[in-house]
């Protein structure tokens, strides 16, 4: 079945007809997001120019029961913006106005198509910035960040998108427009904004977002330290945290990731070392200086083989260039790769990495590791060659790594989201009752399931579940839950 002419004309009335794209060649540009393994060509792509047009388009969807998928820059890595067959994509790319920067109240009001970095650029003249900084911040949009509850390298200290969004104007699945959240941390009833942020586009489309801005820290100190083992680098992180220091960022890269990053951007990392640790502190100068001395002493105590302290803004930028380039750089040392995203309790990092290394050698595949060591968020990169027929094996390994994170008491995803990619793994982390309650919440926002269907929550159609005899849930076996 395809969308009939009546529906298409309704969209053309709601928007400028030129903003309704039906040419299959043009629609193909929207067939996937950053997770290119999943592709569906949408029937139509809508390019509204403001929030009112988004609401008008959604009202047409509601009236004709057409499923819709909101899309920002399409940089997501979990298939969260994968189109739905027989549905439409609503691109927010044209809603890119910064509506207000309010330095007195340290906040900005923006449309969803504004990029993450553009918010900081608009705030910078006032000595302010927007804290969450996903690696893709130059291109990813704030609307997508809200959908995914994006983090970034600095979220250990500063938190995630949910901590920095005060309110959202949201178009609900019936086309009505509501405001979730308020101008302060106060709420009128349950924190609906908090449920909306991170719901991966399944509860509505945000058309205006009010974000908190922070004052640019007075001092930023960054170091790059090399270690002979991942374990030693991990102990440094433990000691920093035990000393009561909350670093702005703690990042770790292993040998393979360093090799890739160096080939790509020549940021000055040491080739061949087992682990490179990036530690960044920020804050008032007096505090920052004292704690930075403590951190360098901890690094030396654990036998760091090289300690490079960024002496200038340029040197600091180079360290971050190496770290942030790591994902894409892996393309230089492998024809193909999967980026995984999972979380383990920080204290189980070494165990997790041992297990991942063992799983990699069992599968005969290399795994490069880049991770946020402060909060246990791993990004294992599974290297493979599709031409050599390794794709399926690599995909299995990557999926097994995410599920390993759950087994170790962590999460299937720290920042990339569940999307299409991991919906079928959700039962490893949540019980059927947990998921059923989430489905009830979803239905409260969107009773007809039109808003980004097939994402986050597993469905029998998606996952091919078959009812079978009782088996204990993995969490039950681990003693985390009991069946009542």
């Amino acid at each position: 079945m395809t969308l009939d002419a009546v529906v298409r004309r309704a969209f053309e009335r709601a928007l400028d007809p030129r903003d309704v794209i039906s040419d299959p060649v043009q629609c193909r540009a929207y067939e996937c997001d950053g997770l290119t393994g999943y592709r569906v060509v949408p029937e139509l792509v809508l390019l509204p120019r403001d929030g009112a047009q988004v609401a008008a388009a959604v009202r047409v969807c509601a009236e004709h029961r057409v499923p819709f998928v909101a899309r920002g820059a399409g940089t997501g890595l979990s298939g969260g913006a994968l189109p739905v067959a027989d549905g439409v994509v609503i691109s927010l790319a044209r809603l890119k106005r910064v509506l207000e920067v309010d330095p007195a109240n340290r906040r900005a009001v923006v449309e969803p198509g504004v990029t993450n970095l553009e918010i900081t650029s608009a705030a910078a003249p006032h000595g302010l910035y927007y804290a969450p900084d996903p690696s893709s911040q130059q291109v990813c949009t704030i609307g997508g960040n809200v959908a995914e509850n994006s983090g970034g390298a600095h979220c250990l200290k500063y938190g995630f998108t949910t901590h920095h969004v005060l309110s959202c104007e949201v178009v609900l699945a019936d086309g009505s427009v509501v405001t979730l959240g308020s101008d302060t941390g106060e709420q009128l009833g349950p924190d609906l904004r908090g449920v909306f942020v991170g719901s991966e586009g399944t509860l509505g489309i945000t058309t205006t977002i009010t974000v908190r801005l922070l004052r640019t820290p007075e001092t930023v100190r960054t170091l790059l330290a090399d270690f002979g083992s991942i374990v030693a680098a991990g102990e440094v992180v433990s000691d920093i945290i035990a000393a009561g220091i909350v670093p702005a960022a703690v990042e770790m890269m292993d040998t393979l990731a360093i090799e890739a990053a160096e080939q790509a951007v020549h940021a000055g990392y040491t080739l061949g070392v087992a682990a490179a640790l990036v530690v960044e502190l920020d804050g008032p100068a007096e505090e920052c200086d004292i704690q930075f001395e403590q951190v360098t002493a901890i690094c030396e105590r654990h036998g760091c083989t090289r300690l490079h302290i960024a002496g200038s803004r340029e040197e600091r930028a180079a360290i971050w260039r190496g770290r942030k380039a790591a994902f894409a750089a892996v393309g230089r040392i492998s024809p193909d790769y999967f980026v995984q995203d999972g979380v383990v309790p920080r204290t189980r990092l070494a165990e997790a990495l041992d297990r991942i290394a063992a799983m990699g050698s069992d599968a005969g595949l290399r795994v490069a590791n880049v991770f946020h060591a402060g909060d246990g968020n791993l990004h294992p990169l599974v290297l493979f060659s599709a031409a050599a027929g390794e794709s399926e094996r690599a995909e299995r390994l990557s999926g097994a790594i995410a599920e390993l994170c759950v087994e170790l008491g962590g999460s299937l995803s720290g920042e990339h989201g569940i999307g299409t990619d991991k919906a079928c793994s959700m039962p490893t982390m949540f019980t059927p009752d947990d998921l059923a309650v989430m489905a009830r919440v979803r239905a409260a926002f969107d009773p007809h399931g039109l808003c980004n269907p097939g994402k986050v929550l597993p469905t029998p159609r998606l996952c091919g579940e078959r009812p079978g005899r009782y088996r204990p849930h993995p969490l039950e076996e681990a003693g985390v839950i009991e069946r009542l």
Partner: protein
Amino acid sequence: MTLRPADLRSVHETVLDTPGRIAITGAGTAADWAGPLDAVDAALDTTGLTGVIAHNPGDMTVAVRAGTPLRALAEELAPHGQHVAFDAARVADGATVGGLIATADAGPSALVYGSLRDLVIGATVVLADGTVARSGGHVIKNVAGYDLAKLLHGSYGTLGVLVEVVLRLHPISQRTATLALDVPLAEAAEHAARVLSGPYEPVALEWISTSPGGEGRLLIRLDGTEQALPARVQRLHEILGSPGRTASNEPWARHAELVRGTPGLAVVRVGVRPSELPGLLAALPVNAVTAGLGTGVATVALAPEAVAQAHTLVHAAGGTSVLRSRPTGCDAPAWGPPPSALPVLHAVKTALDPDGRFGPGRFAPWLVP
């Protein structure tokens, strides 16, 4: 009838075995906040659900039963140099973790750490039909699934029983200092703007009234290390252009008293863009005030007859307001004009508690049982 289950299983069974309407209660430190409860068939007392389930100092997380007083949890965490970075006034009165979440309470340090919605990383909830649902987990960074704990935050016992909660912890600062400056509100707001636009990183920045006539005191709290804090305090003195006084905890005890309320008066919690706050407070017939000049959140004491007008004025300023404690017999409205998201609130309530069993009346007149 009061039921006092002591673990998850007995909460589940209690909810299943108890017909009719149920009030979910904690330590009772906010029992009369928001809309008054309608008649109920039973009270589910959560104060039997106590104790730490797991504290992982290296991960800076703790899983705790929701009926645990936060004060008691703080005592257990303190030897590890860690705490829940949360300082609402009623913590000292024995408020439970679950109660503080359900009422969306927050203290002065919300300026930096937010409220408990920002610190809860996992929750186990029992719904009105007995369903046990978990969300989040034991790790700080986690985006898997909907964050149901957020829905419980500010739900005033109307959506489910919080049974277990996992919280993110922060290190306890080596040292803390508070600068106190006796100035009226308008002047305090100017100081606050200067402090907030500089590199001083205050943890709390509040003005408290010291007389009904408009006199008051600005309190600025800095947290930091032994070595660095004195220099930071000195810098702050310099930009304030007046010596101020470096005080102990005494002014914060006074702050907490004002938040608790004044006998014979109603307490309204107000939130508005920070720059709007001084003007709004000047327009309200308030007897006593604490005003978060960085957060935009104020707690005001006023005559019960003035509550309705306060709701109207706050709403007109684009803010939020809710009635907290009030004198016995006071029938002032708990809520002002409804938010645009009321249909969503209604739909969520219907999805999770279709028979209206939990906390009837709390959101009246918005949600009518």
